[in-house]
C-alpha cells in the first residue's frame, strides 16, 4: 500500500508548483494551467484522505471541485477571449491598465 503521507507530499508539491506558477509565470494561459494544478493538489488530498478514512465524502468533494473548477475555467476563458479581442496579448503585464 502507498502510505498516506506520500499523497500528502504530492499534494503539497503540486500546490507549491501551482502557486509558484501563478505568481511567477507571465502568460495568462500558463497561469490558468497553474491554477488547475493548484486545485488538483486539493483533489489529491481529498481522495487520499477519503481513501484513508474509507469515506466517500472525499471523492464527492473532489468531483465537486473538478466540476466547479471546470466552470471557473470556462468563465476565465470567456473573459480571456473578450480581453484578447480588445487587445491581443496574453501577457499578464500587458494587461495591466489600472494601478494604485
Amino acid at each position, binding site marked *: 500500500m502507498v502510505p498516506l503521507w506520500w499523497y500528502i507530499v504530492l499534494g503539497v508539491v503540486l500546490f507549491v508548483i501551482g502557486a509558484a506558477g501563478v505568481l511567477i509565470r507571465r502568460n495568462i494561459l500558463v497561469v490558468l494551467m497553474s491554477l488547475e494544478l493548484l486545485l488538483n493538489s486539493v483533489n489529491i488530498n481529498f481522495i487520499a484522505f477519503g481513501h484513508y478514512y474509507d469515506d466517500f465524502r472525499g471523492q464527492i468533494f473532489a*468531483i465537486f471541485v*473538478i*466540476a466547479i473548477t*471546470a*466552470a471557473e*475555467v*470556462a468563465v476565465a*476563458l*470567456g473573459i480571456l*477571449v473578450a480581453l*484578447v*479581442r480588445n487587445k*491581443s496579448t496574453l501577457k499578464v503585464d500587458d494587461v495591466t491598465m489600472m494601478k494604485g
Partner: protein
Amino acid sequence: MTAMEFLPVLVMVAGVVLVAGATLFVSSLLRPSNPYPEKNMPYECGMDAAGEAAAGRFRVPFFILAILLVVFDVETMFLFPWAVVLKDIGLVGYVEMFVFILLLLVGFAYAWLKGALEWEQ
C-alpha cells in the same frame, strides 16, 4: 487489486512508446534528409504563405464549443456514478438527477436560443 488492473495500462503505454520510438529510429536510419528553405515553407497550395497562421486561433465559436464541452463533460462525470447505483438509490436519486439534468437543459436551451450552436453567423 487496483494495481493489477492498471499495471497493464502502464505496460501498454511503455510498449506503444517503445514501438513508436523503434519505428522512428529505424526510419531515421533509412530515410533521406535534404531540407531547403522552399521545402520547409508551410504548405499553402504552392503559393507563398500569407499572414499569420495563428490568426485563426481565436475564433470565438471554438471557445464557445470548448466551454460547452466542459459543462457537459462534467455532467457526464456525475451521470456515470449515478447510473451505476441508480437502482439502489431509487426515486430520490432519480428525482435529484432529474433536477440536475433539467438545470443543464436550461443551460443548453439558453445556448441554443442564444445562437451558440450556429456555426455560421
